[in-house]
């Protein structure tokens, strides 16, 4: 369908539209027009991505400025889904384009997705490597400019990557025909044409209309520096599934150091020293050249693609400065690193917990080792330059040293919003020390600040991003629009239930004190048994943590509860290994498709809870066992809570509750796709019954929790669920059109009504204005004055 929002023609790839999609697009357009940021919450499964893409692409294609769209999502499956959605949208647009000219315009539209080398490599040997880091390193060995130059001058002297070489022969900006290319498509295109998909996407980035990649590529300064530097300022940035964006921000600036890492770093330093000695004998001019360059400043030191670890944070003006004299010389720098690593090692020997600010750390460092803050700040950059000069291969072996260098740079750059925590023991009752040095970012706004500053429109959206005002507060920005849309339904297609006690009336809770109580474990188990008896196809169960899931799975097995479940469904469990879990997921889906039915046990905030949909038969019921609170004994969390309280006046309990509920909502929200889909949402914990907890759930879920359904025992919940399934499984005969589904006419009607309302208010305003401002002196009135076009 095609309709207009103000003057903008929007092409939407379906015959009908949900009312919330329409309002969502309207608000989005207002944000883009205003050139500001917004926070939008739209119910899961109501086609958020397609609305977003269809409005923004319409916007791009209609206005001549053609602002680029940077679309960020959390996971690779979501990236791929967004790309596929975009591809389908463009196919639709092409099919409805009226004129030849328009068709050409649609055809010329570029959309690409970026992910790591590991996911995009098709080199027969390199791609077999298991670890992403190794793939990166081996790829660099085959593709960096020095090697390439050598190889081209003297063919056969060094190994080069054919795929990368072929790419270089193509005309830049025209490496792949226009269109939308999903990751799978790009891989296939690379295979067919023997060109490297990874560098293809990287080099096409400046030319594409839409680029889709994960949050980290924009938020993590180490990565953003490399891939997102050239994005123009008027680009539209979208963070989809942004409910965890604050965590991504924090993660991108936090670093952990362990003793094995420091040992490895120390070895790397020695190797660097040896290498320098060797180079000095063979090719001393190289080091001289480097020195000369460093005097001039850091800029233009290398092309982006070669850099293996970009400087995490250095501001522009600093980059123009010269590297401090005491680390300019290679051997001096190596000595400097050695001293720093030694210092960190000594710190690790302490057997009590230490928490200190970066400033106090720097002071102590200076007192002991005379290392100053300024050179420390350039540490990462200087290391990169050195590695390049020495033409080191297999830099994955230097990763620990890189981490130390990044740590040095970060600690020397930020004073506020960070904390250093040294934990000598893993747990409180451990006796063998396993020290870990956490450098932790407490303030999510630090990482995202450059994004807000640089780009005029940033859209933060998700299915579950309640309470909305929390995000602007945490991320320190002022949104133009901040909106949560209710879900319009002609019949309740999902049933949220809160189970507070078992059939034996024992209260259930995942509270630490009672969670391992046999009565609670058994009652949780009987919920699973009962639901696996009555629910068809797939059931997904979420636990608050891995630790709890693992212990409860063992307990259930020993209590014979799982044996009971096996009678009705197959059982799959999330494991520590991502690939193994993917296979379990695949089998889970097969079992659901086959009709055998299965139960998937997984963890809230875990791997499965992010980016995997359990729509239709893949999830007819989601059971949330317990409230997914974070582990409050964690020192890092404690520090963060304290910081939030002191800086933003967000109370600890408020934040913890908010965080738990957004994750719970995220888990249960994945059961729906479309309004004909249905599912049960079971919250099994007595704490969910409290009104203040439920108030933190998204409005679209909360509005359907009835008073009776908010405090149930297992047997009552089962009765309600059966009743619900009996009614929902009947054919939805009633016509949803007009209420929860709009046709084009409905949209136009709505617009006409809206316009009328506007005119009405405007008229009233005008009348009011005229009453006030009519001076009767024959001059221009205010409206006319405002309408005059002044060429200033």
């Amino acid at each position, binding site marked *: 369908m095609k309709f207009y929002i103000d003057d903008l023609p929007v092409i939407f790839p379906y015959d009908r539209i949900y009312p919330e999609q329409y309002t969502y697009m309207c608000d989005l357009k207002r944000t883009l027009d205003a050139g500001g940021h917004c926070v939008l919450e739209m119910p899961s499964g109501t086609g958020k991505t397609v609305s977003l893409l269809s409005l923004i692409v319409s916007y791009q294609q209609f206005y001549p400025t053609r602002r680029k769209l940077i679309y960020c999502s959390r996971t690779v499956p979501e990236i791929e889904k967004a790309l596929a959605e975009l591809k389908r949208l463009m196919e639709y647009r092409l099919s409805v384009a009226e004129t030849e000219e328009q068709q050409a315009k649609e055809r010329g539209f570029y959309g690409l997705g970026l992910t790591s080398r590991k996911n995009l490599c098709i080199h027969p040997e390199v791609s077999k490597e298991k670890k992403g880091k190794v793939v990166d390193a081996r790829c660099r060995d085959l593709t960096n400019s020095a090697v390439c130059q050598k190889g081209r001058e003297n063919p056969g002297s060094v190994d080069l990557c054919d795929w990368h070489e072929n790419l270089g022969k193509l005309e830049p900006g025209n490496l792949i025909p226009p269109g939308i290319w999903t990751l799978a498509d790009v891989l296939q295109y690379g295979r067919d044409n023997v060109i490297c998909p990874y560098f293809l996407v990287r080099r096409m980035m400046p030319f594409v209309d839409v680029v889709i990649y994960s949050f980290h590529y924009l938020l993590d300064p180490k990565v953003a520096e490399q891939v997102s530097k050239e994005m123009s300022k008027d680009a539209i940035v979208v963070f989809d599934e942004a409910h965890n964006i604050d965590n991504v921000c924090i993660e991108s600036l936090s670093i952990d150091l362990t003793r094995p890492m420091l040992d490895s770093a120390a070895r790397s330093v020695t190797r660097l020293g040896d290498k320098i000695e060797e180079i000095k004998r063979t090719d001393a001019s190289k080091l001289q050249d480097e020195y000369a360059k460093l005097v001039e400043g850091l800029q233009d030191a290398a092309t982006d693609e070669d850099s293996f670890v970009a400087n995490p944070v250095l501001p522009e003006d600093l980059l123009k400065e010269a590297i401090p004299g005491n680390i300019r010389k290679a051997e001096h720098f190596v000595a400097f690193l050695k001293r720093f690593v030694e210092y960190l090692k000594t710190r690790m020997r302490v057997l009590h917990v230490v928490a200190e600010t970066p400033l106090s750390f720097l002071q102590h460092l200076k007192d002991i080792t005379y290392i100053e803050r300024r050179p420390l700040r350039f540490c990462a950059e200087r290391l990169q330059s050195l590695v390049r000069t020495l033409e080191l291969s297999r830099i994955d072996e230097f990763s620990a040293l890189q981490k130390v260098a990044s740590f040095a740079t970060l600690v020397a750059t930020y004073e506020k919003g960070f904390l250093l925590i040294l934990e000598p023991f893993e747990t409180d009752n451990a006796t063998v020390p396993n020290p870990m040095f956490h450098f932790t970012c407490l303030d999510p706004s630090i990482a995202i600040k450059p994004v807000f500053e640089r780009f005029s429109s940033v859209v933060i959206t998700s299915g579950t991003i309640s309470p909305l005002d929390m995000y602007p507060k945490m991320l320190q920005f002022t949104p133009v629009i901040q909106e949560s849309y209710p879900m319009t339904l002609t019949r309740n297609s999902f049933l949220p239930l809160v189970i507070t006690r078992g059939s034996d009336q024992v209260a259930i809770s995942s509270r630490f004190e009672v969670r391992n109580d046999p009565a609670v474990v058994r009652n949780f188990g009987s919920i699973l048994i009962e639901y696996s008896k009555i629910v068809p196809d797939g059931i997904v169960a979420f636990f608050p943590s891995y630790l709890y899931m693992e212990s409860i799975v063992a307990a259930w097995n020993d209590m014979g509860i799982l044996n009971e479940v096996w009678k009705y469904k197959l059982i*799959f469990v999330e494991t520590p290994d991502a690939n193994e879990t993917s296979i379990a997921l695949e089998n889970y889906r097969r079992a659901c498709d086959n009709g055998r039915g299965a139960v998937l046990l997984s963890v809230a905030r875990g791997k499965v809870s992010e980016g995997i949909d359990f729509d239709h038969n893949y999830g007819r019921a989601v059971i949330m066992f317990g409230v997914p609170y974070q582990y409050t004994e964690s020192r890092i969390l404690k520090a963060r809570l304290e910081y939030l309280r002191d800086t933003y006046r967000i109370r600890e309990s408020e934040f913890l509750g908010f965080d738990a509920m957004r994750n719970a909502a995220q888990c249960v929200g994945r059961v729906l796709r479309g309004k004909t889909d249905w599912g049960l949402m079971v919250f099994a914990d007595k704490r969910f019954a409290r009104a203040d907890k439920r108030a933190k759930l998204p409005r679209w879920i909360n509005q359907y929790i009835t008073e009776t359904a908010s405090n149930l025992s297992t047997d009552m919940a089962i009765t309600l669920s059966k009743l619900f399934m009996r009614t929902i499984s009947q054919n939805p005969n009633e016509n949803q059109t007009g209420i929860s589904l709009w046709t084009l006419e409905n949209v136009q009607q709505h617009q006409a009504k809206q316009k009328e309302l506007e005119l009405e208010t405007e008229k009233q305003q005008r009348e009011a204005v005229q009453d006030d401002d009519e001076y009767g002196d024959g001059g221009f009135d205010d409206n006319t004055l405002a309408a005059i076009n002044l060429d200033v």
Partner: protein
Amino acid sequence: MPSTTLAAKASYKKLPGTLELTPTHLQWTQDGKKAPSIKVPHSDAASLFCSKEGAAQVRLKLGLVSDEAGHNFTFLAPQAVAVVERERFKTELTNIISVNRRGVNASGSVPPPVTPISAPSPGNVASPRPPLLSRPSTSRAASVASESRTPGTPTSDPAGDFQLRIRVLLSNPDLAALHRELVMSRQITEDEFWEGRQHILQAQRAQESQRRGKPGQLVDPRPQSVDGEIKIVITPQLKLDIFDEYPVVKKAFEENVDKNMTEPAFWHRYFQSKLFNSHRASIRSAATQHVVKDDPIFDKYLEKEDDELEPRRLREDRVDIFIDLGATLEDHVETGNERDITMQAGKQRAVLPLIRKFNEHSGRLLDSVLGDTPNKRRRIEGSVEERYAQLDLEDLHDNQSSSGITLANLDSQRYFEGRSNQTSDSTITISAKAAVQEAKASLQGWSTNLSQLKVDRKAGGAALEEMTQNVAARLEVKMRKEDIPEHLYRQMAATQTATNEFLRQFWLAIYPPPADFPTAGAPNAAQKAAKAAKMVGYLERTHEKVEGLRQGAHSLGVDPNKIYTAMKPVLDAAEKAMAFWRQRNAAKPPPPR
């Protein structure tokens, strides 16, 4: 070699007889009798139990799909011979059972009921009837009907059909009564009776052909207490299950039994070995580790515990990118602090083998049903449509697809002409203005009209009176006793259902149901006419029957009119059918075919 027929002397329920294994059945014949009194089709065998080696009596117990208790046979030959005989039966039956379990035996032939067979009921005339076409199952679930694999396989198996009908009748007493009434008294034939009831048979067939999948439970032999002793009871079935679940045990079995040790010794040692412990689905095994003895033979087969964060074996090919969690992990360099202790997966390493066992077991069960992971290529590349289907919001499409079936109108020209003529004739131009005025005029002075409205008092009283009478009459009816004697009532009901059945057959012959599946031997027109005539013959007797009933009622002192009223609808229906038949015959003499 399942075709060999085994035979042995065995007693059943303390009666001596012969136990035989034929290619299709296991049967037992009592000595001195000719027909076997127990006949169990192979497809019904579900489990097998044996008495212990060295027990006084050599017994074999066969559990059935429908009946866990099953049959118990005792071998009568001297101990040594009996054991050998039993072993032979055991091997054969174990094979059969395992085949059943795997469900390779797609139930093409439907197993007859598992009751010790009595003499076949002579009243039932089983004539061969046209095969039913089984419609392919529309269910997404492949397990629902094995037919879905071989759609449209005609089951031209009269015996099977016959059995099927018996089972339908057994499970439906009303239908059985009707069947007795009509078919056994030879009023209508068996085939006629079932005509138009195919759907019942089909439902029954579908239900029966639904294969039971492998039960989901883990193979986890737990010690039970038998006669005060704690032991693990091993049945041939359990043995197979263990071999299925743990190929390594099978390997050990093949390599060692008969060479190094006897079978009982093998199991004895296995259950005490570390190998068994590692196979147990419990994390407690870690605690019992020290109880378990070292075993030089079984320890060879011991694999390292699969409790690392990364699994030891992992399938090489990737999963569909839409569910590829590994891709996300590798999407960017790991950043951030380590997750807190509760969120580190795999902290309890003892649980990992258990979790992996669950996933593997579930996967294996699926593979056993669906075959190996299908179509790897498709999974990786994923066709575009399939991708889109996963993203589609189907309710946002206009439902154009179900716009109905186009009418096959032969002479559309005439249709439209006729229509337009009609409309041109009947169109009366209504002037909107006039209509409005008319309506207005008719409404003038409505308020005065309303105020003048008076309700006639008498009429109101009459209405009330009438209502009271109505209620009283109803009450009277209710108060009156059920005065129709039981057997008369039953007769009435029988007449009613029989007449209904005749009517059904009659109309079926006149108006055959829409042929949703062309039956091969569908009766032709002449047959139908004959049938209809026959039915009319029956229907004509309805009057007599009712008259008879009335007579009977009279003699019992029941108001005959009551009977008449009760039977009136049926009589009317019969009347109508007969009138139709007469009219039709008068209008068009039956074609001389």
